[in-house]
């Protein structure tokens, strides 16, 4: 079983569109949406939820007013600025338990928090694991780990050939969790100054993991010069660019219709996406 995780560094380059196209073309795959902050893969794959699970991601401190003598020690020791006027602001509490350990009146409890939900669903392309992080909740990295673990178990049990994962943007904690254990990182970039800058950063991160790395340039024809610059950069790094997808309004229409572009259109972008899928599956098989 091989896992392809689709990443980008910069947001909005087309990760989900690429992931959905891979999902639609893979014969034997489990699908996972690890962009738990802003999960969008469901819009194209239309999952039918089979099982819902609660995600108890963290603990937060809570001050028991009846026991609290307002000595203020908890506020002094909290390094996250989460305690003010003998009240805990759950948005800033990181669950470190320092206040709980230090309170002389034992007036602080650590309370488990429901930080989100995750789902096992069916789609016409295969089983899908996805999640929704609660509003203003932290620990998206942990929820990513939960989603990935469930996807891997389903893939092992059902002897699926691939796991195809839609990753989060950035290079922070949920991205690190997404990369963990993957066989290939497929990085979708765009021919812009920001796209290149962010590609460089996410590549540096991915190089710390034992993953094969491939790059796709989306909307490459909107800025041919920048596109060439990105290709040159990848060559200099010894990284293969396995696809260049042209700008094509058919993609926007497919997304608006809620259909993976490779199923909606046979235009130039859809054809390029098909090619990317073929090369990704080939690439990960030998990874």
């Amino acid at each position, binding site marked *: 079983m091989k896992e392809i995780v689709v990443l980008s560094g910069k947001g909005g380059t087309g990760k989900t569109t690429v992931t959905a196209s891979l999902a639609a073309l893979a014969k034997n795959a489990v699908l996972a949406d690890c962009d738990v902050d802003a999960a969008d893969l469901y819009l194209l794959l239309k999952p039918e939820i089979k099982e819902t699970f609660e995600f108890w*991601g963290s603990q937060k401190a809570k001050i028991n007013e009846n026991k609290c003598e307002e000595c203020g020690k908890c506020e002094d020791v909290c390094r996250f600025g989460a305690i003010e006027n003998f009240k805990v602001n759950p948005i800033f509490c990181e669950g470190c338990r320092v206040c709980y350990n230090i309170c002389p009146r034992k007036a602080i409890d650590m309370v488990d928090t429901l930080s989100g939900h995750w789902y096992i669903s069916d789609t016409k392309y295969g089983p899908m694991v996805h999640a929704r992080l609660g509003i203003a909740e932290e*620990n998206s*990295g*942990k929820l990513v*780990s*939960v989603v990935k*673990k469930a996807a891997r178990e389903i893939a092992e049990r059902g002897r699926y050939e691939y796991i195809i994962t839609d990753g989060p943007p950035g290079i922070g*904690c949920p991205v*690190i*969790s997404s*990369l*963990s*254990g993957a066989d290939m990182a497929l990085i979708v970039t765009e021919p812009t100054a920001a796209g290149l800058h962010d590609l460089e950063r996410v590549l540096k991160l991915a190089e*710390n*993991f*034992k993953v094969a790395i491939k790059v796709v340039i989306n909307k490459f024809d909107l800025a041919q010069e920048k596109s060439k610059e990105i290709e040159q950069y990848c060559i200099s790094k010894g990284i293969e660019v396995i696809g260049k997808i042209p700008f094509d309004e058919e993609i926007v229409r497919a997304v608006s219709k809620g259909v993976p572009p490779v199923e909606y259109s046979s235009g130039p972008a859809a054809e390029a996406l098909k090619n990317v899928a073929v090369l990704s599956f080939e690439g990960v098989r030998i990874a």
Partner: protein
Amino acid sequence: MKIAVTSAGSSLDSMVDERFGRCRFFIFINPESKEYEAVENIYTGDVHGAGVQVAQFIVDKGVSALITGNVGPNALRVLKESGIEVYAASSMSVKKAVENYIKGKLTKISNPTTPSRHN
């Protein structure tokens, strides 16, 4: 003498679980007498530093060697510092893995085989 094996089930016929921090069971076994104890891994749902925690658990059990599939850098550091030798086994039963261990046929893991999990 006691060694630990990460296992997918609670018996010696179970397969070696290749995951370390998130394996289903640990089998603690005396390789000579074959006396063993299976303990469920209670840390699988734990999202913070599972590797370190599980390594600490293994260390506290006082084993001299561990047989598993993959180990990350944090867990390996804890195990190494405690003088526990780590051996790799995959696609075989716990019984077979222990036999291979006695015969000296398992490869020692001296470098992490999975990247760090920061959470």
